[in-house]
């Protein structure tokens, strides 16, 4: 059950160039949020930018929720200017998150800002005592750590890194790290840019491993009312149909997704 909250902003700090970590305090929201769910945040009291911005829940600790976001446009720029002590108009938690009622080792694969939602997932799996391996990719060491890598490592989970500039771990793609781990009895949880997800889905399929992917799409309502955020999916019989990223997603079974 999602709601509207005027969440208190505990802190909002730049953790890497253009990447911010915002902690808000809102007990009910913290209690409700599940891994892979997102918040729909109003970034302006006025009419421009008009729409809310969807941002994943990165971390929950007591009454506090953390989000990590990258400044890419006007909305995230305004979000970066939010002062601690203020209130944030937050709608959530929204969406169908990761299914953690799975078995076998969990392999978390995150690329760039896609690392952010893996934080709460790792927290949950860790609490469940699940064997979890994290594969974290990004442009630079600093960005990988800021986008959520350091949170994963902080839980004491094994984390393998891949960076574009080789500043941390493998000088290459996170999918190369994944390939090294396969085949294996496991379940893959992935979030990141489309090309990465497509590749992860392909590897999972080739090795017959279940795989959940968290997708992004521009959103109108965030609650399933506008049909603006569709993802083309296929049933086993091959018939294609649209599902709502905000409601049936953002996490989908990778095998269902019709990749563009």
């Amino acid at each position, binding site marked *: 059950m*999602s*709601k509207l909250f005027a969440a208190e902003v505990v802190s909002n700090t730049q953790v890497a160039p253009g990447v911010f970590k915002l902690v808000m305090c809102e007990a009910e929201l913290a209690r409700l949020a599940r891994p892979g769910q997102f918040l729909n945040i*109003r970034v302006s009291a006025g*009419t421009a930018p*008009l*729409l809310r911005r969807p941002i994943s829940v990165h971390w929950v600790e007591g009454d506090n929720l953390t989000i990590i976001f990258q400044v890419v446009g006007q909305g995230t720029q305004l979000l970066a200017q939010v002062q601690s002590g203020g209130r944030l108009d937050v709608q959530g938690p929204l969406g169908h998150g990761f299914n953690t009622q799975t078995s076998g080792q969990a392999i978390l694969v995150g690329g760039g800002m896609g690392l952010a939602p893996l934080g709460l997932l790792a927290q949950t799996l860790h609490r469940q005592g699940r064997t979890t391996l994290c594969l974290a990719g990004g442009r630079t060491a600093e960005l990988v750590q800021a986008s959520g890598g350091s949170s994963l490592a902080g839980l004491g989970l094994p984390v393998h890194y891949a960076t574009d500039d080789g500043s941390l771990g493998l000088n290459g793609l996170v999918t190369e790290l994944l390939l090294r781990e396969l085949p294996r009895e496991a379940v893959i949880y992935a979030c990141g840019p489309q090309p990465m997800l497509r590749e992860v889905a392909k590897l999972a399929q080739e090795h017959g491993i279940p795989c959940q992917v968290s997708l992004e799409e*521009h959103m*109108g309502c965030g609650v399933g009312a506008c049909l603006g955020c*569709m993802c083309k999916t296929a049933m086993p019989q091959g018939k294609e149909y*649209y599902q709502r990223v905000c409601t049936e997603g953002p996490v989908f079974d990778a095998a269902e997704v019709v990749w563009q």
Partner: protein
Amino acid sequence: MSKTMSEINLRVNLGGIELSNPVTTCSGTYGFGAEYAAYVDPSELGGIVVKGVTREIRPGNPMPRLAETPSGMLNSIGLQNPGIDAFIADYLPQIRALETKVLVNISGNNEEDYAFVARRLSEAGGIAGIEVNISCPNVKCGGIQFGTDPVMAAQVTRAVRDNTQLPVIVKLSPNVTDITAVARAVVEAGADAVSLINTLLGMAIDIQRVRPVLANVMGGLSGPAIKPVAVRMVWQVAQAVPVPVLGMGGILTAEDAIEFMLAGATAVGLGTANFVNPAAPREVVQGIAAYCQARGIDDVNKLIGAAWK
């Protein structure tokens, strides 16, 4: 004499539909009524208008379907819907259970489609009225063509009128030279009320990809950006036809809603506002009541057209 809020009459009659207050939600922005129930109880609303339904199932347009614009947004959903049979079987039961007046928005490729859907809905029962969308800019055939030609608009209206006893509200397109001509035509053809405005036809181009942002190229512009155009058209139409007007287009706050009522709207619709502030419909109901109270107005009907009456 100032009135307490509870003494103020908020009831309005929209072409035969008694609404407990003048605030409704717009088709296509409120799903099938349940999606926003966690934020505002449907019983607090005058009514809701559900997503456009067609005779056959429609997959909708390819993605992307949305783009944000200054104080507005473009959509090209393309009337994705399960078709009238699945709608009646799978959605209508829940909709009937809602404690508010529910209007169903219908579209079609031709008069027969509209007539068919209207008849099926009437037979199925349990709804308060039909909103006839002759103005959807996002589908190739049907939709907007009907809305831009008074003769065709009247034909579609008559086809629906002849196939239902339910109140018929015809939803007008703003993409016309003279909206009053279309309004008059549909009223003569039997519309019990008119609703306006649907979205303005617009587009955006992605300068990095050098291609339109929307897969469907053009889409419908909604939100506060279009409010001045909507207020103008409500003002024109309310003075041109003898039936009530359901006004919409960019309403975000009670002040906006009051502007529409003063321009001549009997009731108002909130569309894009729901995305921005899911509590908006409730806030608008309360704000209208507060405005009446502050001015000693005992009946919300006194606002209707007050800026020109």
